């Protein structure tokens, strides 16, 4: 079936629009009564527009895009995981270590040789850290490398 992507998107957006519009009706009337536009007026309009848009997508979808499969999809998921882990480890491990790992892994997965990748990571991490902490006076977390 063609246009599968758009149909799924349309369905998702339809659910979102209905939930969004419904939630807007649940808010208590603001103190002193609504005049002209209440907090729910604008969201209600938006929900209507999105309902129409999502129905249109489902009825007249565009041809499907080429979606990544297997290996490429795995690489994409890996990249996202790296980014999340990067955010997770930034404070406990400190900026330099976490950045070396994150930038290194990403470059390596994008095709660089592992050694070059991690050296790039380390150099860029140190440069940015020094620049930020000493040049610009913005503190990035030192983490494990903290000097007491």
């Amino acid at each position, binding site marked *: 079936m063609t246009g599968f992507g758009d149909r799924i998107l349309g369905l998702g957006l339809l659910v979102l629009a209905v939930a969004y519009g419904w939630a807007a009706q649940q808010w208590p009337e603001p103190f002193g009564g609504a005049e002209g536009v209440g907090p729910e007026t604008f969201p209600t309009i938006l929900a209507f527009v999105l309902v129409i848009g999502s129905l249109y997508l489902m009825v007249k979808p565009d041809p499907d895009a080429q979606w990544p499969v297997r290996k490429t999809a795995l690489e994409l998921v890996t990249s996202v995981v790296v980014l999340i882990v990067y955010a997770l480890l930034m404070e406990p491990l400190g900026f330099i270590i976490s950045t070396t790992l994150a*930038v290194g892994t990403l470059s390596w997965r994008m095709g660089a040789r592992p050694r070059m990748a991690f050296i790039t990571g380390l150099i860029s991490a140190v440069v940015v850290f020094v620049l930020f902490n000493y040049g610009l006076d913005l503190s990035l977390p030192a983490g494990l490398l903290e000097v007491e």
Partner: protein
Amino acid sequence: METLGFLMEGFAVALTPYNLMFALFGAFVGTLIGCLPGLGPANGVAILIPLAFTLGLPPETAMILLTAVYAGAMYGGRISSILLNIPGDEPAMMTCLDGYPMAQKGRAADALAISAVASFAGGLIGTIGLIMLAPILAKFALTFGPAEYFALFLLAFATLGGITGKNPMKTVIAATIGIMISTVGIDISTGTQRYTFGVLELYEGIDFILAIVGLFAISELLFFVESRVGGGREKINVGKLTLSFKELVSTIPTQLRGGVLGFIAGVLPGAGASLGSFISYTLEKQVLGKKGKFGEGDIRGVVAPEAGNNGASSGALVPMLTLGVPGSGTTAVLLAMLISLNITPGPLMFTQNADIVWGVIAALLIGNVMLLLLNIPLVGFFVKLLSVPPMYLLPIVTMVAFVGIYSISHSTFDLYFMVAFGVAGYFLRKLEIPLVPIILGLLLGPEMEKNLGHALILSDGSWSILWGSSLAVGLWVVAGLGLVLPYVVGPLLRRRMNAAMKESPVSD
């Protein structure tokens, strides 16, 4: 002559050593951003916003920095067009047509030099146009009431899909999603909590800076991972400069025509720099006809699109500065900076924040001179950077985005949010939902709601006020046209653009 006085004050702001330094830095970084693969102007400016913000730059300096980056990116885009036949950014597409053949004939250095001059001419003409047109438009915009503003915002969304946009419904959907995201948080007029789900971090709403950086920078990384083009490009030899003064002079009419046309295309909502360079190139071909050797490395075929896209980039600042309604992705990102600096964009900015507006305009003039001076001697350096493989570059860019977002609030919560926006951006781009209307929705959503509220209060709750004045009706009509026209004209224009690309004797 009032304008001249303001402009002089603007120069006084822009010429302080501190601001000059940032303009120079911005011009340099901008050129880099323009020529590096995978870093468009909107993307590049977006990454720099959090940095400008955390550095605590004064508003005029921050704006000068980003405007210089913006202008620089337009210069940089041409380098890879000429040397590699790969446009650095979309507006530089037309430069490939004659730039690459010139490079193949061993005149790469000449093509780079003349295109720098043409960029300068286009930028200069565009900025002069901006100086003349902006105050007039700002004065006119003062007559706008809330109903007119509401219609104007709709017009901005409708035309943003632009002539090259494919499916107008997807533009509508994108804009709606953007506005929806902007409604999260505490409602400013009533204090009602909307869509916060009791999460403290959501009370103040979703910071559009992290949305922008996530949508652009992170999704770009994912696209590169997917397309597996991490490897670098070959080193290119630029050769010697053989451009004669006579040849330079002979292109002056082309530069003027290109700059003026580009500026007009830039001011029009939704047209933007790509169209500017396209129109300039096509017109030049018409005017010179058989006298030129277009597509085979005619020097004027390089000059026209470059003058056009730089003229257009200045032109695109007109609606952004005077109405607070940007006409392109990059100007939308500039608007984000203005809003986060607590400056209300729009006609009042010309009176309330005159130093910023005119400082930016003066900086644009100075920046163009700097860019010309930077681009001719340093072109070899930029060319070297072209061969930096994206597999090193993109992870570093991503890291800079992380640093920028982290240093705003020192919270990792924001980082997760940014990654989430990046993943969403990837899927949306895959599904051909344009990202720029989402950004614009995020930025303009609150203003739109506010104006709707004001209009209805003025009319005592009668919705007919929204189309109550002839000006508002006019805006509605243009908005409608903007949405429908691309459906009709778009395929035609795209075909012609593609045909023009194919006509060029060399492909890849």
